[in-house]
């Protein structure tokens, strides 16, 4: 594929609903990151995968947030019992190497609105 893709692009959820956000990284990219970007803010790190291993989940704001990448390619970010403060753009990025110092490529994001 040409780049990182994310789906859905927009999601409206009622408070308390569960949502699942999908990220398709660039084929062959080892590293995958999830970020949360609130309006007027920079992206905030949520979690990092190296292949299928979730090496860092220190940025996940609560235990309602869960991410997986079971086969080392596609990743899903799940938010349970959504709250209004979860409203944000969720960005996924991938990078070819596992040791940084390489550019990360961003997807277009999923804009989540919790009503």
């Amino acid at each position, binding site marked *: 594929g040409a780049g*990182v893709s994310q789906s859905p692009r927009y999601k409206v959820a009622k408070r308390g609903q569960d949502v699942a956000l999908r990220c398709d990284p660039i084929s062959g990219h080892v590293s995958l*990151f999830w*970020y949360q970007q609130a309006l*007027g*803010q*920079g*992206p*905030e*790190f949520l979690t*990092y995968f*190296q292949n299928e291993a979730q*090496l*860092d989940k220190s*940025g996940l704001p609560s235990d309602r947030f869960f991410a997986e990448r079971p086969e080392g390619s596609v990743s899903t970010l799940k938010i349970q019992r959504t709250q209004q403060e979860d409203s944000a753009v969720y*960005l996924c990025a991938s990078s070819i190497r596992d*040791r*940084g*110092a390489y*550019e*990360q*490529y*961003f*997807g*277009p*994001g999923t804009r989540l609105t919790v009503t």
Partner: protein
Amino acid sequence: EDKVVQSPLSLVVHEGDTVTLNCSYEVTNFRSLLWYKQEKKAPTFLFMLTSSGIEKKSGRLSSILDKKELFSILNITATQTGDSAIYLCAVEVWGSGTYKYIFGTGTRLKVLA
């Protein structure tokens, strides 16, 4: 706690002006500093800086890193309306065998015709 601070938060200039955007950081285990341009969608990569004092240049954009004073600047000369965007600075940090990027809040640049 790792911190990346960008200034100014927003800036309005006229076409043809030169702008300088600032990014300062306080992090442990610094590896690199990156600049991104974000219009309506995904941030797009501009520069990666790892060494002090070496200017990176791409057309009207240039950037330099000072690892002693812990900051970087992004210069845009002869600005055009298409430069209007949010400019994000991110610092790559290492720890416990893994790495991540800490982003600043961004500088919102508006270039008027």
